[in-house]
């Protein structure tokens, strides 16, 4: 009986208007955030060398002074790959070595601690 007496039309009004309003407000937020995101997202300047310049570059590296940059977002997986490459490179970089390995014979030094004769000749007085 109560269900019949309930003002269902006003209840549905609240539900439909409320739910639509939640969506509208959040869709507006999506648009605002997306717009700001495009403006403020961190961009990385990636040098873009044209093909011809690239070919020239192989022959005369000094002559290729002009580098064209493209503005773009560098995704996290690219960043991770670059970071890994740098890490491997720098972990491998160390002081120059001669690469000559020498094994020298070590002269056996006399030590009273290991000498049997010394121990026998120097008895406790």
């Amino acid at each position, binding site marked *: 009986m109560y269900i019949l007496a309930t003002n269902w039309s006003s209840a549905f009004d*609240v*539900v439909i*208007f409320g739910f639509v309003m939640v969506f509208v407000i*959040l869709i507006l937020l*999506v648009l605002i955030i997306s717009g700001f*995101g495009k403006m403020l*997202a961190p961009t990385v300047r990636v040098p873009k060398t044209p093909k011809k310049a690239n070919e020239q570059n192989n022959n005369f590296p000094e002559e290729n002074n002009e580098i064209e940059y493209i503005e773009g977002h560098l995704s996290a997986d690219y960043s991770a790959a670059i970071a890994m490459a740098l890490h491997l490179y720098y972990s491998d970089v160390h002081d120059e070595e001669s690469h000559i390995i020498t094994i020298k014979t070590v002269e056996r030094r006399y030590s009273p601690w290991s000498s049997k004769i010394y121990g026998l000749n120097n008895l406790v007085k």
Partner: protein
Amino acid sequence: MRTKKYIFLLIAVLTVGISFNTSAQKQVQLAAQADTTVVANATTEIAIAKENLKTEKDGTISESFINFLRSTGFALLSWKDLIMLFIACILLYLAIVKGFEPLLLLPIAFGMFLSNLPGAGLFTPELFAGGHVDWGKFANGAGLLDYLYLGVKLGIYPCLIFVGVGAMTDFGPMLANPKSLLLGAAAQLGIFATYLGAIGLGFLPNEAASIGIIGGADGPTAIFLTSKLAPDLLGPIAVAAYSYMALVPVIQPPIMRLLTTKKERGIKMKQLRMVSTKEKIIFPVLVTGFISLLLPPAAPLIGSLMLGNLMRECGVVERLSKTVQNELMNITTIFLGITVGATATASAFLNVKTLEILAIGIVAFSVGTAGGVLLAKFMNLFTKIKINPLIGSAGVSAVPMAARVSQVVGQETDNSNFLLMHAMGPNVAGVIGSAVAAGIMLTMLS
């Protein structure tokens, strides 16, 4: 073994309580009988005089003893109080032994325990009857919890909690993928569907809205809205909201599995873009301005949330950020928990309404979860880059528990699939969504 100890302790406390109650009542009856028999058995005047003198002396001692017994809480204990104390002990058990949201459930349970101790006068619901504070009676002496409850009644604690939540939340995943806001909106379906269900069960519109907000899975928002619209239902709604939030890992996975195929659960999402600090700083200011101007009743919640977040992201108020994340949050949680628990008095809690609220609450959670998952599936029909529908369920707030559930269910299908950061987007969007829904309910129903 430990569980047995707790049960034994609980039974012992209740037995002692009941025995004291019955013995006190017997004492009162015996003393009254003694008074009447002494007068009736007197035959001579001298004897009567002597007896009267004796009974006067005895009377003063027994009367003071009776008065003392009558003033103790044991004499005033009713079966309803005992049931409430028992429920409080069960909640304490769940918090301490089972670890269900202990930071909140423990103060709530103890607040419930305190307010149901008869005679202590720690909490007086009459001071807040009819949704208004009776300031005149406060002057005559209110209980400790009455004063603390003003923070709930005036909507202070939920906002302070939101400052702390904002300071602990990273909105980066949401900013990196703004579409996740839509999933946060879809998960609010639970709020509005439950509103209809509660109306059908005979609740008034303002009560139905307060019950529906349980589906937002956001404790402070639920408390804020209920304290404004239906303060009488604050106890059951808070207990239902926090209990179900603790049960998110139990409630959500079956619904998520039911609504998705194995292929959909295995969708691997694209790595999120990096979000600049500038974006993170502008976001809270922008959102506060936009939502507060559009929906003024939501301003306290959104403003507090974003204030905390700005403190976190700006990097110049490190001390304040740490304070709101720890000290302020913890102190407010204690006050909020105790006072919300205190509202669960026998008269307010032990009725059919509470059972109905608990039943509708779980429906609200389930519908909210389903709403998020279904919208994610719907979005996949139109977008090139597919979304894993499991992240939709995280739109019900319950930060970060719901996001963790998405991660766990996703890894059941493919253990190389990491959904946590993707799910954090809808998860924090759900906080904004439920605050917006609360603002809309306040606008339409207050």
